[in-house]
């Protein structure tokens, strides 16, 4: 397996509303396999915007994004959806669980979409992930019956279901108290250490960032260190 999981070359993005301004300025960076990287910076410096470009959901930019040394810039909507499904796991500040499905089914959905395994197997794997996250007892509950920290753990399990190359998080602990964010951090740490999972997490929490392998600091759309 190649060591470079994610790479950007000269990423530049503009917003045109209300006036034209450069949110991201010539960003070149890469993340290696098994790394736990955090992105920090002042509010409004463009962290989220960068993450959306890396996630392939936002395609309106200049420069190139490569995932696993494959150029994703310019690929079709369907291909990008497949790449997200297969190679990227997301954890956002908000959990985005589907209220119509049980916790277990929510975790299974991306797996059912990928169809790499049979439904029974996907269910089994989903249960395993929930178990690692200490959520196996909640598997058959509906999302609205869970606490905020529990929902976030379910979202992490969902991000893991297809064994993604990289998990991206945008302030995944932003809505959680100290105890719960420590818990989420420990989960992330365990994933990198024991499963060699690559992680790229935007955070405001200096404490959280300080405990990661590498910190990328941004200011006004540029990487400064």
């Amino acid at each position, binding site marked *: 397996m190649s060591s470079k999981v994610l790479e950007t070359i000269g990423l530049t993005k503009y917003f045109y509303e209300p006036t034209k301004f450069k949110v991201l300025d010539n960003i070149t960076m890469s993340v290696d396999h098994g790394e736990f990287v955090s992105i920090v910076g002042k509010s409004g410096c463009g962290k989220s915007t960068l993450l959306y470009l890396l996630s392939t959901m936002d395609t309106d930019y200049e420069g190139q994004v490569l995932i696993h040394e494959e150029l994703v810039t310019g690929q079709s909507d369907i291909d990008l959806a497949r790449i997200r499904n297969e190679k990227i796991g997301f954890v956002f500040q908000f959990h985005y669980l589907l209220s*119509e499905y049980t916790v277990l089914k929510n975790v299974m*959905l991306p797996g059912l*979409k990928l169809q790499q395994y049979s439904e029974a197997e996907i269910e089994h794997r989903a249960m395993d992930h929930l178990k690692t996250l200490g959520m196996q007892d909640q598997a058959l509950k509906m999302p609205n019956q869970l606490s905020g920290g529990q929902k976030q753990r379910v979202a992490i399990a969902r991000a893991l279901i297809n064994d993604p190359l990289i998990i991206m998080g945008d302030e995944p602990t932003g809505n959680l108290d100290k105890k719960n964010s420590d818990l989420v951090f420990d989960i992330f740490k365990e994933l990198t250490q024991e499963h060699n999972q690559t992680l790229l997490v935007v955070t405001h929490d200096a404490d959280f960032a300080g405990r990661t392998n590498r910190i990328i600091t941004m200011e006004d759309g540029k990487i400064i260190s």
Partner: protein
Amino acid sequence: MNYRLILNIAVHLLRARLKQTVVAAVGVTFGIAMFITLLGFMNGLNDLLDGLMLNRTPHVRLYNEIKPAENQPVNLSDDYKNATNFITSIKPKDRGKAIYNSKTIIRILKEDKRVVDVAPKVTTPVFFNSGTIEISGIINGISVAAEEELFKFSDYVTEGNIADLEQNNSIIIGSGLAKKMMLAKGDIIKVTTPKGNLASLKIVGISQIGIAEIDDVMSTTSLSTAQKFLGEPTNYITDIQLKLHDINLAPQLAKEFGTKFGIDAIDYQTANSQFETGSNVRSIISYSVGIVLLIVAGFGIYNILNMMIYEKMDSIAILKATGFSGNDVKWIFITLSLIIGLAGGFLGLIFGFAFSSIIDTIPFETSSLPTIKTYPINYNPMYYVIGITFALFTTAVAGLLPALKASKIDPVEIIRGK
């Protein structure tokens, strides 16, 4: 694309909004049920009226019309061949009402594959005598078996049995005539023919067609009885009536037989053109009412899907973020609306059938239609096929716009908004 998963998601979204879903489906159900009921009822009426006419009118009728000779003598003259000839005061030529060579014509027609059956007939105006009064009328001498086959004449015989016509000198008289002349089955009626022949016929039945003008004048006897009292030989036939396998061929065949046998021919469509118009208007009414109802139902579906998409923005965003393409999302919502259409439409068919059956049991008795006891309904399965097709079509169209809208939702915008 994984249809099972898409269907599963669609069903879950529907279940979460069960009330609205039911309201939308009921809209479709109502539209389809009305469509089926109206179409069945209107066409039932059409059939009834068609039957009324069809049963009295042959698909093709061959006869001799009293009219001027087509080839006037001057046209035969070589001297005036290239001239334009004006002829005035032409009088019609009486070729006699009898069809020349009728036996041969009937034989040839019976062999024709396009013809179901042939019914020869003798029609003659007569006077019915009752005491001192004379009432003018018409006697049809029919071939009983053929007439029954073509026109179901027995349906219109309210008293007596048509088989009794086979007896010599028997007659079935119209109900209006019987009333006027105070005659009943078993009585003897005296008849005077145009040539002055007198005959006494025994009444073996009363007929009621349902059209007063006909019931007041028409009586029926057998072919041989009619020929006998007219003093004509057994090849004396005034009308040859045909029933065809395909009624749509009638105009064409009328023309063909007319030229072939040198005789006048009229087809069903020409004889009943005004009835066709009525039938068409009724069909158009039922189709347009059904379509209008379905369009209304379509708007209902459109609204509900739009609302659902608005409510489910987050879900759509995360589905897209986790690997569902715009196309998948579009199909989720199209499937949603098709489920509403299918469920609503199917129920609509059931209700439509139920309403039709209820109407079918409502008594509808009128003296002019002796065989009809309840409102007529046509249960043509084609209406049900059209109904469900309409339902699916409207819901698919109504679902398409919201579905396209959902497929274009930009997940970044939603996620950034939180």
